[in-house]
């Protein structure tokens, strides 16, 4: 049986340690990346959406159960498409539904004449622009942003949830 010398054993265990460290590092960044993706932020057009909302109020708005803001403006919902990573997170975290369930939910509501469908986007910047240009609009993105026409809506006192 072939025996490995001590220095070579030490070298190979060091290399294994480096490999493991690299793998653990990758895993950490992957989890960190995913955690970041799991964080959502609500943004709203300054004309309509309030600066603060409770999570239950946000859910009622995004489910089409609340259809007007307190100032009477019609609520327009802007969401990322359910086949995007952010759209999947939105479906799961806010609606407790899969992407297909969410699409079916809205198609059904629109078919019943109970609500206007949300506007779906493939890019966050398009969604932000839409919210900026449409009074009464509210949208869900991944990180807080604000501009002259858009405000980050605090949910339960936090900028992200």
């Amino acid at each position: 049986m072939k025996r490995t010398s001590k220095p070579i054993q030490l070298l190979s265990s060091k290399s294994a340690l480096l490999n493991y460290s690299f793998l653990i590092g990758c895993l950490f960044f992957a989890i960190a990346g995913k955690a970041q993706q799991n964080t959502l932020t609500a943004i709203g057009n300054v004309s309509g959406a309030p600066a603060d909302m409770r999570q239950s109020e946000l859910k009622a708005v995004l489910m089409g159960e609340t259809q007007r803001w307190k100032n009477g403006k019609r609520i327009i919902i802007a969401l990322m498409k359910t086949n995007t990573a952010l759209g999947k997170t939105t479906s799961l975290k806010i609606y407790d539904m899969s992407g297909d369930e969410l699409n079916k939910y809205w198609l059904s509501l629109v078919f019943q004449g109970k609500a206007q469908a949300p506007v779906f986007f493939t890019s966050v910047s398009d969604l932000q622009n839409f919210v900026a240009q449409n009074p009464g609009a509210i949208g869900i993105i991944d990180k807080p942003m604000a501009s002259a026409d858009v405000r980050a809506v605090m949910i339960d006192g936090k900028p992200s949830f």
Partner: protein
Amino acid sequence: MKIKLLLTICVCFFLAARSFAQATQIKGFVDVTAGYNKKTTFGFGEQDLFITSAISDRISFLGETVFKYDAEEHSEFTISVERVIITYNLFGNHNLVMGKIHTPLNYWNDTYHHGRVFFPTIDRPLLFSASILPLHTVGVGFEGHDLGKIKFGYNLFVGNGLGSSEVADNDKGKCITAAFHIKPVNRLKIGMSYYYDVVSAGADVHDIHYDHQINQHLISASIARFGKKLELLTEATAGLNHTDSTGTKNTLAAYAYAGYKIKEKYVPYVRYDNISYQSGEMYYKGKNVQSFVAGFRYEINYLAVVKLEYQHIENTNAADVDKVTAQFAIGF
């Protein structure tokens, strides 16, 4: 006075509609079927087109038109305008609704109606196919939804009654619909409704001529629970039809559906239907019937669903029916 009121309403609508970018969408449903009942048959169902349009910040429109097979037509097809709804949002979740609507009497009629891709089973329950309910009403009313913690909703509607055409009433009487529902927890809806109408003597309803006046009361209740795994839906309608000669006769129509999601896309299900007519019932002219359905639904995605179903129907004074049907329903 009436002209002033009409002018005021017109001005309000004009003001509400001005300077608004219109958003119009067209969607549709269709299905193809293959069935076996002593022989194999292929066919396709209604082709349903529905249009939604946001006319202004407060006014919206929904139109639904169905193209379907009709053996009596020269072309063998007929066009049926199923819904024409103009909605004016009064405030919050309260709306004024005008036009032709699905009578909001039951869960199924209001929720699925022609959208077969939404149907949990291949066909409507017998409660709807046996003309127990007036499926549509033309008129005006109010509706509200998701009010308060229990998410209370209501529909109050006045319309042309049974025997009327799409454009005019056949008598002075109006039908009245009052429906209420609550959604106390997520994915659960409990509803009750009441419908009253007078079918005038000489009226034709569902191609049947009625010599006597009939006073109709319909009382319905429904429970719908579409959970993550378990799906339950049950509805019952008591129809009380009164004529001077026969007195009041009761009809009870009900069904219960249960499905269980094995995975997100696979749902085996069962449904039981029963309709019992009291002896001497003059309006419905139906025979007691019960049906058992067992099937399997595969939801490819939210716009494409395949169902395979076995149905056993037991009719009084008629032979039992056993059939197997497969359906591919899509939304587009």
